[in-house]
């Protein structure tokens, strides 16, 4: 089934679109943004053109400075005791006062590589699925009335993944601007994990599901369990780095847990040192970034902190079962008492709510994206859980996007390269002023 109205809008395309397009994947944790020129034959390179910007306003207790958006990664050198304010709550832009400041610093400021004039720019903007419609209206109004973009296409972020050639072997090449036929996008994000079946790039809304565990849940959980030994409740950034550095998804949870169990201080049994690590916390003087190394049982934590062991003074935290019990929440939310099924179960809920004829095409095209899917072992675990839960007569294929973080952006950039595909989707500023916000929302909902 062809995208609705693709041929109809093609003739009017040049007038409707500005020459450049800004693709902005407005994630809760980071904004992935970059320009996609309309007239180029080269593939958009996510690495070179997509900028990752922290979507937060951070306040440092140490230098008493407030960092807005991109300033955090460019100018901040001491991430200790950083406090965060995030305008995106549960995946949706709620606090526009903060978001406006970040966008202005990213898009209008001279220092930013993304500086542009919104009046000459098409915008492809993403939102999380299943949001309250008032928030969608707010977003439309801010884009057109405050930033005054020339034209604008708002879509739920999983949709754009369909425009990237899927990483499955033996799939036909995808010309830019066309969407994969059947794709089930599993987006493991900062706020939550969503599953969205897409048919030619259009979501099957009745089968969208959301598991309310994402990167921030895991960071907060790690903060909580590490605080049993070292007080890290205020170190959001450092704990997030610890999570990214050492956490992994266990392939056999209970045996891994047995291997690192020590029934108390005097228990003579040896723990598996391949799992237990010492994480050296950064002090932002000698150690700029924390790192992990194999566990050393000889020197105690206190001696190290005081420099009594003969080496440099360093604060370490020993991390054992926390390495895999924390990200395990993605697969077993009931471990913290959450009444939801894990990633695999949520995917199956999504698929089984479709007609049976569609089960096979979606089971064979499961695409994993999102920053929190980068844990080592995630893909293997998901694949084995899916295979064990699905009847053998079905073929299950699970693949991860080449760059899980920037895949949505890459899809948007590929869509933007094709005028014919993009033109019927966007609403121009003139149309918005003419028809109003209700019409705009109906257009984005596919009802015009």
């Amino acid at each position: 089934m062809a995208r609705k109205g693709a041929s109809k809008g093609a003739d009017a395309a040049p007038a409707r679109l500005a020459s450049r397009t800004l693709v902005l994947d407005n994630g809760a944790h980071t904004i992935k943004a970059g320009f996609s020129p309309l007239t180029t034959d080269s593939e958009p390179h996510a690495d070179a053109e997509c900028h990752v910007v922290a979507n937060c306003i951070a306040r440092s207790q140490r230098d008493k400075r407030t960092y807005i958006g991109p300033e955090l990664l460019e100018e901040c050198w001491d991430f200790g005791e950083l406090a965060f304010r995030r305008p995106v709550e549960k995946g949706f832009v709620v606090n526009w006062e903060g978001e406006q400041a970040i966008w202005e610093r990213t898009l209008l400021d001279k220092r930013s590589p993304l500086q542009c004039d919104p009046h000459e720019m098409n915008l492809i903007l993403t939102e999380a699925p299943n949001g309250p419609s008032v928030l969608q209206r707010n977003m439309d109004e801010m884009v057109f009335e405050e930033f005054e973009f020339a034209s604008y296409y708002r879509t739920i972020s999983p949709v754009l993944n369909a425009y990237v050639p899927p990483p499955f072997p033996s799939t036909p090449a995808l010309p830019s601007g066309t969407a994969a036929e059947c794709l089930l996008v599993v987006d493991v994000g900062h706020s939550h994990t969503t599953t969205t079946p897409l048919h030619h790039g259009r979501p099957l809304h009745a089968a969208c599901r959301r598991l309310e565990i994402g990167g921030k849940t895991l960071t907060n959980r790690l903060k909580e369990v590490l605080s049993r030994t070292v007080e890290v409740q205020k170190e959001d950034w450092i704990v997030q780095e610890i999570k990214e550095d050492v956490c992994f998804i266990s392939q056999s949870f209970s045996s891994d847990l047995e291997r690192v169990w020590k029934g108390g201080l005097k228990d003579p049994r040896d723990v598996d040192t391949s799992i237990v690590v010492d994480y050296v916390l950064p002090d932002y003087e000698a150690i700029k970034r924390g790192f992990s190394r194999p566990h050393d049982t000889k020197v105690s934590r206190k001696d190290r902190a005081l420099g009594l062991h003969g080496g440099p003074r360093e604060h370490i935290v020993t991390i054992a079962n926390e390495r895999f019990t924390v990200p395990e929440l993605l697969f077993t939310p009931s471990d913290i008492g959450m009444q939801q099924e894990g990633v695999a179960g949520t995917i199956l809920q999504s698929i089984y709510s479709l007609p049976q004829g569609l089960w096979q095409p979606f089971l064979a095209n499961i695409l994993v994206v999102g920053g929190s899917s980068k844990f080592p072992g995630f893909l293997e675990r998901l694949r084995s859980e899916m295979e064990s839960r699905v009847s053998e007569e079905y073929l299950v294929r699970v693949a991860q996007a080449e760059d899980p973080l920037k895949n949505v952006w890459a899809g948007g950039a590929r869509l933007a390269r094709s005028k014919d595909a993009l033109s019927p989707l966007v609403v121009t500023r003139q149309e918005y002023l003419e028809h109003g916000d209700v019409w705009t929302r109906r257009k984005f909902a596919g009802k015009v």
Partner: protein
Amino acid sequence: MATGPLRFATPHIEELPTTHTRQAPGFAWVAVSGAQDDSSKNWGTANRKRARAQGGGQTEAQKEAITARQQREIERKIKELNSDNSKDVQIPLPKREGTGGGASRAGKTSNTKKILASGKTFAHYLDDEEAEIARTGRRDGDLEVQMPAAQPRPSKTPLARRKTLGEDGSSTGGTPIPQSLNARRSMDHSSRPSTPGASRLDEQNEDQQDIPTLPTDAELDVLLKAPPLTYNQARSAPPPSNAPPPRRFCEVCGFFGRAKCMKCGAMTCSVLCKDTHDEHRCLKFYA
């Protein structure tokens, strides 16, 4: 009810406290559910003494089951884990140099002024929408009202195949579900496919042929045109009842919990962990 004509079917209006933010302008709609189902709040009316006498004390299963109080504690904790901002910190935006100062931050039009000044949180928006659904039976009325051919909820087929929501479908507990959704709920309660070939629909399919065929274009079109689920509807359902019970972990070291504390119900794995627990954590609320 002699004063019939004077009674209005309006939801109860309540101003929600906004603790961490500025007071939101205006008011917030709050859906008020009917009877309270929460047994923990139902403290006077049910004859608990009689129920206890008939039941002959607690069963093992009841003892194992978590109490309402523990459940609330778990929910509070999950909410904390899912919070976006740093705890107890308010970060005001710094004053800007140049570029017109505060004027442009206030918004260029009345709409954006309102948006920028809004102190609402996501929970407010969610409640507003739930209340609108309870009131009007549909979300975002604007979109539907202007539909040219008054399109009802799209045809019954996909709705029947839609998966049942968990009984506690909404985060707000007693959020009422619109009539149309209620009907759907009861309709597909029995036909929730848990394994391939288990549901009523599948049996129908299998009567005709073995391999399920792709749906027709018309069927797909209906699926594609279905409106998005609401935030609460899209939440992943709880595991099926035959799933293994939730694992419990040692509160001190994170290993599998083996023994339950008689006083507070927390799990520990070994004598040492139990000692630590008794010394530092047990019943910390009372100590």
